[in-house]
């Protein structure tokens, strides 16, 4: 379970004025949930993910995963959280399969076992023929598949997607997203998907959290409780007005 308690993050800037990315955010994500986080550009969605990932420390408040802070208990979360970013972030000097195994290498898994497992994942993602190709020899979609294999091979409890399908063309993005969620259909892992694409979120997850700017929860919706077009309009309205759902609820009929 991920629990954010009055979480805030302020970045210091060169002019001395702090930039508030997250403002008193409180949010709970339960085991097995697939949650989409949407909001306007620069609203702190990615910063929230980075705090969950444990590579960023909150300025105040707490972010707890099963009662522990991922930043402070750094090594305890080894192999338990993985992320797929907007850019593939493959190591250019490693082949596709070597990129996939890196997480297992860091966890100390035996080389042969790690490579066998990586090959299985490449097979599942249709990349078995490209195992020995370097990232520079792969297309954008293929590279992103490798990045997904790198994240999933760890069988993590939490998977974070930071605009993971955002830079691909529509067809590739849709296909890859479908493959990804198919693979995870039986998984008990928490999936947190940050995206600016509302349709993508509505199609993929069972809960959508709308972030204001700076990041605070404006709305929190179960996708199966609403008609998709109506929910989409409501979310768009929340993002545009930057006001919480209870303040605009009275205007729902107009949305």
């Amino acid at each position, binding site marked *: 379970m991920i629990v954010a308690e009055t979480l805030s993050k302020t970045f210091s800037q060169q002019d001395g004025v702090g930039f508030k990315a997250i403002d008193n955010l409180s949010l709970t994500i339960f085991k097995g949930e697939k949650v989409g986080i949407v909001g306007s550009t620069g609203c702190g969605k990615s910063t929230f993910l980075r705090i969950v*990932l*444990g590579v960023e420390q909150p300025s105040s408040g707490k972010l707890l995963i099963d009662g522990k802070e991922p930043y402070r208990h750094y090594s305890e979360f*080894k192999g338990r959280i993985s*992320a797929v970013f907007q850019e593939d*972030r493959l*190591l250019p000097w490693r082949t596709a399969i070597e990129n996939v195994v*890196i997480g297992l290498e860091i966890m100390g898994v035996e080389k042969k076992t790690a490579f066998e497992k990586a090959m299985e994942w490449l097979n599942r993602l249709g990349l078995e023929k490209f195992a020995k190709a370097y*990232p*520079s020899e792969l297309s954008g979609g293929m590279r992103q598949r490798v990045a997904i294999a790198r994240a999933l091979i760890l069988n993590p409890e939490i998977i974070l997607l930071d605009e993971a399908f955002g830079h691909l063309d529509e067809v590739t993005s849709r296909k890859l997203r479908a493959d990804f969620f198919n693979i995870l259909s039986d998984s008990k892992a928490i999936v947190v998907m940050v995206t600016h694409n509302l349709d993508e979120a509505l199609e993929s997850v069972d809960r959508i959290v709308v972030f204001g700017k700076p990041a605070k929860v404006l709305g929190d919706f179960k996708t199966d409780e609403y008609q998709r077009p109506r929910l989409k309009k409501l979310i768009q309205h929340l993002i545009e007005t930057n006001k919480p759902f209870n303040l605009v609820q009275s205007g729902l009929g107009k949305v």
Partner: protein
Amino acid sequence: MSQKSSSEYVAVKLAKGVAEKRYYLISLLGVAAVWEVASWFLPPYILPSWALVFSSLMSLNMSHAWITVARVLIALTAAFACGLCLATLMYIFPKFEKYATPIVNLVMAVPAICWVLFSILWFRGQELRIFIVLFAVCLPGYVIDILDAIKNIPFNLREMILSLRPSKTQYITKLILPAIIPNILTTWKVNLGLGIRVVTVAELVGTLTGIGYALNFALGQQSIREITAWTIVLVSSLLALQGIVYLIEKRLLRWRK
């Protein structure tokens, strides 16, 4: 691929290689031709013909060349190891970087000839003298280039690796070292050139062995033939060493398009 098509492939590759190098070859052959023609009109003690130079080349004591090459390689390896450690420490401890940077810059600003003079006055052993000179001249290049390379590793790759929660050693071996290899190899190539030039000057005045000493001896004999022959050995040694680095580069950086 059949044997025939394989040999054809090799032949085509070779022909392509020669074609790519043709400007290089034409240029060098042009210089050699001009030299040869000029030698017909000038006395051999000013400009010897290639035949005379090659006869001298055959009679050289090549142990001097091996000694010079060994000195360069030993000193450069030590400078590289030290440079890598220093750069890593400077990266890990920013305060240390603040103190170390002025010293590195100071060492770099001192001309090579001054290091030669200092080492002659400060040290007795000829090997130690040469080592100190080469080490002092080449160390700053390694430190500065490696530190820059570490700092230039893209943030998104760092973040990706950190998200997998590596130990410090894993962070260095899985990310830092492979990422800085291109810069390390480039610095090696540059420092080999610098090292060969500097070692010759150092040997010229500070030792009784090596190509520098042999050049000084040839100067005493006023033998332009021998000086030219040693110059050829020196240039060939440098090109061979750089060629080795190039081959290593080709192997290690095969991922680069």
